[in-house]
């Protein structure tokens, strides 16, 4: 199981890196709904990607709850995500809109702080998975 979890972590990191690369190296078709606004597009894509990691984690935890019953921290953290993530994403959306409307240093900092909360949750989710696997002594 540890190898699979490492794969999950590896792909998460790979994808996060790829998103960053996209933000630097590609362009937006100006005919699209973002009208060439790459900053907003990248911010939205990163938001969607972070959501998908947490969505995948909670989905996996729910589908395998019986198997994971001896790892209560996994369930507890999944519950924390279910309870708090909607608020985290709402906050992120609010500060993102504020920054788009008024791109000041203060608004940028608020956006980065809101993003950091969700990134920390994504990191913590992978740590819980890895630790729960290691605790069982699995290869």
């Amino acid at each position, binding site marked *: *199981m540890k190898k*699979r*979890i490492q*794969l*999950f972590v590896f*792909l*998460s990191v*790979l*994808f996060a890196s*790829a*998103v960053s*690369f*996209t933000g630097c190296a*590609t*362009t*937006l*078709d100006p*005919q*699209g*709904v*973002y009208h060439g606004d790459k900053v907003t*597009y990248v911010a*939205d*894509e990163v*938001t*969607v*990607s972070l*959501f*998908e*990691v947490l*969505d*995948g984690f*909670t*989905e*996996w*935890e*729910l*589908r*395998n709850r*019986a*198997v*994971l019953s001896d790892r209560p921290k996994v369930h507890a953290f999944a*519950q924390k995500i*279910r*309870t708090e*993530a*909607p608020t985290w*994403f*709402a906050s992120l*959306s609010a500060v993102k809109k504020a920054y788009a409307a008024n791109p000041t240093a203060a608004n940028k900092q608020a956006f980065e702080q809101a993003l950091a909360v969700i990134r920390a949750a994504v990191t913590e989710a992978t740590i819980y998975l890895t630790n729960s696997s290691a605790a069982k002594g699995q290869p």
Partner: protein
Amino acid sequence: MSAEIIALIDLALTVVEKFGPKIGELAASGAITPEKQQEIKQRIAAIDTGEAFNKPNWKPDA
């Protein structure tokens, strides 16, 4: 097949489902298409409205 193995397969499928198409998209060259932009816009809207959380895996225990 043990439940643990089923969970492993499930995790692997989740990874492929979540990340496989995106990595493929990122490998493609050229500008991000209007269709892809529209997809991101719709997914952000679902997150912003809370619709994205209206699934069984997002319901906390009672």
